[in-house]
């Protein structure tokens, strides 16, 4: 769970970095997208690296999801429905920790939509295009506010997922000490915030007409 989560977090950060290229204009953005296909070329065939990368990511997602389902099932077995508390109060837990399971499902659905939308372009609000830049700009036009809204909600879910997930991964990997517990949590909050804002900027910039 922690290891696959860490891979996915690193990927997200790279992905966000790429997204922010949108503010450098169409050429830079499309060039960056294209360069990903060329990574490792000619050592690897065209898009070779990208496919290896995708396989690793897919495997991470599947393992991550499998582990999550196992934990969920174990938790349900450990406290079956008939043994639920009549009254239960939170003591110290974060809001983010509540969102991990349902938020995880939402994120999974979003990823499917996101790939169909911006990678394969099977879903193409505002018209399909070979230019990733145009796909993006077309997709988040104000008239497709519901696309933007879904995107925003999903990115917030990702942020919450990271808030607890990063802390939890660090703890699971043995990094927590009482003296640094606060710092680890601050790191988790910091990365979660950066990733959330970083992913929200491009589509909102499109929606509000700052990028066209």
């Amino acid at each position, binding site marked *: 769970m922690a290891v696959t989560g860490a891979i996915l977090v690193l990927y997200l950060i790279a992905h966000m970095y790429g997204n922010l290229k949108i503010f450098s204009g169409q050429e830079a953005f499309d060039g960056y997208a294209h360069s990903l296909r060329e990574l490792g070329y000619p050592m690897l065939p065209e898009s070779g690296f990208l496919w290896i990368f995708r396989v690793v990511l897919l495997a991470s997602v599947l393992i991550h999801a499998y582990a999550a389902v196992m934990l969920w099932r174990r938790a349900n077995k450990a406290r079956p429905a008939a043994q639920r508390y009549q009254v239960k*109060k939170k003591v110290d837990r974060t809001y983010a920790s509540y969102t991990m399971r349902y938020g995880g499902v939402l994120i999974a659905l979003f990823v499917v939509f996101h790939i169909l939308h911006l990678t394969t372009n099977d879903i193409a609000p505002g018209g399909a295009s070979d230019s990733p830049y145009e796909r993006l700009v077309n997709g988040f036009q104000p008239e497709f506010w519901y696309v933007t809204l879904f995107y925003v909600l999903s990115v917030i879910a990702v942020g919450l997922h990271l808030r607890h997930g990063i802390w939890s991964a660090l703890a699971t990997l043995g990094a927590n000490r009482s003296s640094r517990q606060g710092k680890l949590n601050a790191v988790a909050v910091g990365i979660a915030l950066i990733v959330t804002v970083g992913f929200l900027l491009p589509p909102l910039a499109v929606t509000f007409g700052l990028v066209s």
Partner: protein
Amino acid sequence: MNITLRVWRQKGPDDEGRLATYKLTDVSPDMSFLEMLDVLNEKLTLENEEPVAFDHDCREGICGACGVVIDGEAHGPERTTTCQLHMRSFKDGDTITVEPWRAKAFPVVKDLVVDRGAFDRIIQAGGYISAPTGTAPDAHANPIPKPDADRAFDAATCIGCGACVAACPNASSMLFTAAKVTHLGMLPQGQPERASRVVQMINQQDEEDFGGCTNIGECAAVCPKGIPLDTISQLNRDLLGSLSKGVG
């Protein structure tokens, strides 16, 4: 003070159980929570209703026998054991809901009493140092740096009450197991069995049907002895070490 109690009544493990409502008048703020239950039981007995069964023994916060969930919090609103909680933490006219620890690994025996034998079995799996009586070297043969001794002590103060499991959204016993792993793992005497101990205890914990740990932290937040959450990280480090050595 006047208090309305909603108390979980359950005749035995197979009974469904329900909340029963009782009213108490003249509750003194200086009473401990368990003394308030004593008063309730005296009243119920005289009214020919069976008294509420609850576990308790030392009533000074160290044996770990007592423990109920009070208004949704393990051991109630103060960070201490149920026996050290006093009625002054409540207000006149309050309605208080009292439930047993709830986890499959802690089946209800009756009313608020649960069976915590799973904890004993986790200890049996490796929560000890093998030192048969008579085999010990002089106590000063092995100096232990004070910080290590202090950290071992902090973890060793666990009273095995089970609040961590009760509070955990996953009903995980990780803090309990981690406290023991940390206590023994900090000491030189605990090193020979360190690698196998953590694996065996974790396996037993899984076998007892406790849930998995997702680092939510409610366990440490309710722990009456303040067992630090970082013991879980310590356990994970030990576990990674063991697995990398091929133990387990």
